[in-house]
């Protein structure tokens, strides 16, 4: 089973990487681009857990280490592979 954690900068937290990427997209001609936020995806493989347990463990991992809640938000998704 795979736990996928998306970590993104919190609303209100400056994201200079997102700003730079937005500038890059615009200079390529993607004029529709508004704001870009750059985060990360962390995949964790686990064994012997139900989907519900995996979700709960994934949230605990995100809270304790994978995200820094001072500046980042996270979502946790679980899938079979």
């Amino acid at each position, binding site marked *: 089973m795979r736990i996928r954690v998306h970590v993104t900068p919190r609303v209100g937290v400056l994201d200079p990487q997102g700003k730079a990427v937005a500038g890059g997209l615009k200079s390529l001609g993607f004029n529709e681009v508004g704001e870009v936020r750059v985060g990360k995806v962390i995949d964790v493989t686990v064994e012997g857990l139900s989907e519900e347990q995996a979700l709960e463990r994934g949230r605990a991992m995100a809270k304790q280490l994978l995200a820094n809640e*001072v500046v980042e938000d996270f979502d946790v998704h679980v899938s079979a592979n």
Partner: protein
Amino acid sequence: MRFGVVTFPGSNCDHDAYHVIKHVVHRDVEFLWHKDTDLSGVDAVILPGGFSYGDSLRCGAIARFSPIMESIKDFANAGGPVIGICNGFQVLTEAGLLPGALLRNQGLTFICEDAWLSVDNGHLPWTGHCPEEIVAPIAHHDGCYFADDETLARLEGEGRVAFRYCDRNGNVTPEANPNGSLNNIAGIVNERGNVLGMMPHPERNAEAELGDASGAWVFRSVVRSFLEGEVGR
């Protein structure tokens, strides 16, 4: 008075800190290994700069789980003087010993240059004998200090900003802010004032050969505070 300098895998300013304490400030000093669980009775702890654990995940995020960090938390909570410089500051925020976080520099580049610092609160254990301004080099990619509005207001209201980036005349201006830190913050302390985190490196400007040597006053300040019984466990 005896100092301990912590070495994490990836620390690279531990020897600089050791040198300054031993040969400039003339105090006893020893290295503490990240896997140690006791602080061997030291009176002050230095978390040095570097790239602990390769900055994996986030700067300082993994170092906070080093066995020695539990003892450092107890030491800090008991009033022992602790300074985190650069990566050490990042470790202190990740460990929850200091509020806020250090984000990627606003300009996205690694910055390596001298920084002029205005001593915002000169009555702290680590700043008590500092002149009004000191010079300390910065060398970081993730040094943009951030805290939520409430935390920032508390830090400002309680006089917990130790250093702010300023120009050569001591003026704290947006132009003098190298990395986008909120309110030009270069260093903060905990509620009690015994734990200091700062992005600039005072140990790299502690001798006349390397500049005006004003960085040494950070270390001399804590020595005097300790000897006068103002800080310590």
